[in-house]
């Protein structure tokens, strides 16, 4: 995290990130076309593009999917999460190009409408070996479209964080549809075995990282049950904090981040109002608690974003007992002042 983290604006990091995505895309496409032109000089150029864009979208999909768990496992990967949305939208655009080219190449010159042809050219829906694999790609693309279309914060606000999050979890369905699209395509078309090897490495990595991160988090949720005293949760001795950072406890339903800012302690919900990022893993910058994911900021005392922003998170009341900080597990209304401890 740095001082330049600012919410929403186009800042130099976002531009650098986008430039990197564009460079990655261009170099992949050039390399793919170059190598294929040598290995398969007779391949139809449109088929070559279909393969180049198809495999690139598969690669990008994997990248999008591993960023989340990598960031849970190590904060070093956080810069990748900062602008992940653009990586997701690029994945959709590249996949759309692959899908539309395929539709034109394989279905536009038929007797029937392209989409009807897509669904009826091969009707072996009951056979696994001959299954119309293109249909799986089509459904994956439709879901990716809805995700890309609602990726903007405008939709996040209008749909609500919970619904938006659920909608975007459909990426997991996309993932399995794409894996089967590629596998069934590969066995029917005798594509390169390299693709199968990469696919196998790819899904092992994606599944492995998610299980590891998920298991770690669920274990943490269990561990974070703290000792109770008068219904308050014990957080720790005032000397156990790093300056500007938080300690996190769990009230059984959600995590609470207790920050130290100079000689002042304050507690807010660990869940960022933007996309649910872990506020307690961020730090206090210029007196404001700053989310490690996309840099949304909150005041320490009332959990409100500074004007002109309007986001709010819940605060919690703190107490000092000897040299120990205790927190009330019951949240205050989002955006209302909580009792802080001032030394």
């Amino acid at each position, binding site marked *: 995290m740095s001082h330049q983290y600012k919410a929403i604006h186009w800042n130099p990091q976002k531009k650098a990130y986008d430039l990197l995505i564009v460079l990655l895309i261009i170099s992949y496409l050039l390399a793919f076309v170059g190598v294929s032109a040598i290995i398969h000089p007779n391949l139809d150029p449109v088929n070559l593009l279909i393969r180049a864009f198809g495999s690139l979208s598969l690669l990008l999909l994997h990248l999008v999917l591993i960023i989340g768990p990598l960031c849970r496992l190590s904060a070093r990967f956080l810069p990748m999460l900062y602008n992940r949305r653009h990586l997701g939208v690029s994945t959709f655009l590249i996949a759309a190009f692959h899908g539309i080219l395929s539709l034109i190449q394989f279905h536009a010159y038929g007797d029937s409408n392209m989409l009807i*042809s897509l669904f009826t050219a091969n009707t072996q829906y009951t056979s696994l070996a001959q299954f119309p694999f293109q249909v799986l790609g089509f459904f994956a693309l439709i879901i990716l479209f809805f995700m890309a279309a609602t990726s903007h914060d405008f939709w996040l606000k209008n749909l609500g964080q919970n619904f938006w999050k659920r909608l975007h979890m459909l990426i997991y369905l996309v993932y399995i549809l794409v894996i089967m699209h590629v596998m069934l395509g590969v066995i029917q078309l005798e594509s390169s075995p390299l693709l199968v090897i990469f696919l196998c490495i790819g899904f092992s990595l994606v599944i492995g990282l998610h299980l590891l991160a998920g298991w770690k988090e669920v274990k943490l949720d269990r561990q974070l049950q703290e000792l109770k005293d008068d219904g308050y949760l014990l957080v720790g001795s005032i000397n156990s904090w790093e300056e500007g950072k938080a300690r996190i406890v769990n009230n059984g339903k959600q995590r609470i981040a207790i920050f130290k800012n100079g000689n002042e302690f304050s507690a807010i919900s660990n869940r960022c109002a933007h996309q649910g990022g872990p506020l307690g893993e961020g730090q206090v910058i210029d007196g404001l608690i700053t989310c490690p994911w996309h840099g949304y900021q909150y005041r320490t005392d009332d959990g409100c974003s500074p004007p002109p922003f309007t986001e709010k998170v819940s605060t919690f009341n703190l107490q000092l007992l000897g040299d120990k900080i205790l927190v009330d597990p019951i949240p205050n209304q989002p955006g209302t002042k909580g009792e802080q401890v001032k030394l």
Partner: protein
Amino acid sequence: MTKAQRKLHLLSWIVLSICIPLGFISSFLVIPDKIMQENVFLNKSIQLENILTKSSHDNLIVLLRSDSEKSKYQLEVIITTPFKTPEVGTYISSSQNFIMDEAYYLGNLGSANGKLFSLPSSLVQQEQIQVVLFDPIKNELLKQITITP
């Protein structure tokens, strides 16, 4: 994320960690011994210029087409009197005895009055091609035609 969302994520991935390898492995188990679709140009109906053979059979005309380099082939089926069944699977059979699961499936003629199918060149290398029209729903052989390329 909330505790419930974290649990849902973990649960989704536990399910995926079972389904994905299962799908992956079962695709391997069913690898057909011959390539099912050498190309995916199923319904493509820009007619290739050369007609190699043409034959008429009661209610249909069958043409074998190719391009000038003989690198691409098409089978054109023109129906003069429609079939009474909606499902007219068009297959290439490797032997006189048609067995659906072993035949190469070209596509459904349906109620169309004609269709062009791409033919993998490997099929045209044989001396004779058995074109079979078969209704997989009623399990009924509608027509079997032999063409000699």
